[in-house]
């Protein structure tokens, strides 16, 4: 299942200009991710987790080296091609949900499908399926301000998952959630990972998230410190 490579990172360096100098946030990263992984980038604040996720999400580009995502070299995509890659194949989950506040739950989840120009009936079914996964079918007509933090994050997950992307990038998805909600959401993601073979890459330092990961990549000061693959029986933990 996890044999095909979905991401290849070669000698990746990311520098940010800082006045006259520059700050190196990622230093010579070399990594490979296979399809269907459930992996976390773990590290203290400032270690470069978000920076790496942004590059994998084609929201940013490497300063040096290469990052191939689904066969595309991130550094050499035009903005249009990058948008196309995100639209077709990527799902983002943000720490702060980033839902569209004036739109209903349904409309928020529907958004990626509108961009993909699915027919109305198809959209309806896909949105309802996605809301079913996260257990929010009763809240279709609510708007984000009326939802709890956990519910918002579940909407965000539904939005990221609704088009069944090949790759989901989740940046601290549980940072604003209590333990019960965190576990609920992680279980949902785990199920989706298993059922749809979606690749999940997390950026986190939350122990709850870490306990679900099947591969842990420790970042420290912009370098890969440790890369552990854990083989656990799904049923053992809970």
């Amino acid at each position, binding site marked *: 299942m996890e044999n095909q490579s979905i991401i290849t990172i070669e000698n990746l360096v990311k520098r940010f200009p800082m006045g006259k100098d520059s700050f190196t946030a990622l230093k010579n990263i070399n990594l490979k991710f296979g399809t269907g992984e459930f992996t976390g980038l773990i590290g203290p604040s400032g270690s470069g987790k978000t920076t790496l996720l942004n590059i994998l999400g084609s*929201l*940013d580009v490497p300063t040096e080296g290469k990052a191939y995502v689904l066969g595309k070299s991130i550094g050499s995509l035009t903005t249009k091609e990058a*948008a196309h890659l995100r639209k077709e194949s*990527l799902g983002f989950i*943000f720490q702060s949900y980033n839902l569209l*506040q*004036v739109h209903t739950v349904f409309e928020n989840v529907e958004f990626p499908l*509108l961009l993909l120009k699915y027919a109305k009936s198809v959209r309806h079914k896909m949105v309802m399926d996605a809301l079913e996964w996260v257990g929010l079918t009763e809240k279709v007509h609510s708007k984000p301000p009326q939802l709890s933090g956990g519910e918002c994050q579940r909407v965000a997950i539904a939005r990221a998952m609704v088009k069944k992307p090949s790759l989901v990038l989740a940046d601290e998805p549980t940072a604003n959630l209590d333990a019960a909600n965190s576990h609920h959401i992680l279980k949902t993601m785990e199920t989706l990972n298993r059922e749809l073979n979606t690749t999940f890459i997390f950026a986190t330092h939350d122990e709850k998230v870490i306990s679900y990961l099947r591969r842990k990549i420790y970042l420290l000061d912009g370098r890969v410190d440790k890369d552990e693959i854990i083989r656990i029986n799904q049923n053992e933990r809970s």
Partner: protein
Amino acid sequence: MKLALKLAYRNLIGAGLRTWLNVIVLSFSFVVIIWLKGIMSGWDYQAKTDMTNWEIGGGQYWHENYDPLDPFTLLDSHAPIPAALQSEINSGDVVPLLIAQGTIFPEGRMQSVVIKGINPEQTIFRIPTQKLDTSTDAIPAIIGAIMAKNSRLQTGDVVTLRWRDTNGTFDAADIVIVEIFSSNVPAIEQSQLYIALDKLQEMMILADEVTTLTFRESKESRPEIDGWTLKTKSMLTRQVDEMIKTKSAGQTILFVILLLLAMLAIFDTQVLSIFRRQKEIGTYIALGYTRQQVVGLFTVEGTMHAVLAAIVSMVYGMPFLIWQAKVGWTMPIDASEFGMAIAQTLYPVYSLGLVVSTVVVVTLTTAVVSYLPARKIAKMNPTEALRGKLQ
């Protein structure tokens, strides 16, 4: 585009009060612009109609020497009626006028007047000339309300009129005011005295001679006649066009100020929402929008203010505009001071072209004003937008 419209609509409605404030300011511009422009075209229409009905008919032939601005030309500006027009005169489709100079002495004061000889049976002008067909000792004459006011003359008053006939001999007779009429055309009222044409011809010893010939309004163009200058209606109403043009120029300044205010509100909203909605912008990009598409979305959103404003304008503006067209707008100043064919109450006339062009111009301006701040999005770094940390 359809998606952008849908999103823009949701975002705008979601923004609530702020949107409606902008929409109301914009709709106010719509209504005021359409109303004022309507007043202008109403004025143009009224002035030209009044001139047609009272002063110029469908156009005129002037004796080649006639110049209404120079009374001294009156001595030489008359000639026998051209034969070509005789049958139309008989049928009442052409009205000849003989114009001469004279002096009246109301209450012992001296006042020079223009004497116009006109056929009492004419039907082209609304001047109640049939009243001239009364037999009295004095010569029956009618005057306009402005003249009556200035000379303090009333119906039934008898005054002495003095004139010089074509041989240069002075003569005098009494006239009696048989009617005072009121038009919106000061040019035919101010110092103008109307008596029967044959009477004036007799007084001037100018049998069968006339100064101007006015023809009835028709679509056919009139031929030139030797010794006479053809004055078409558009030539004779040029003064109105110029007046409207000058007034419109003044209005344009008002429109610009109104639009500027509305646009300032839109611009402000755009700048603020681009600043406050950085995370949302980042989210659109993360979900697969290009930055150009987000620029498009924000532009559509801003422009939609104008569309909503047009709808809101219909709700309260239409009844107002229709009511105005019915009751008219009475000018706070005395219209006769203008010295032009202006009614005291103007009835706005709205054309489809006026409404459409106003909506198009305002909408396009709104689109430009919405686009200018939105361009900034194209330069945004999506990762920084997502963090909401741009300045």
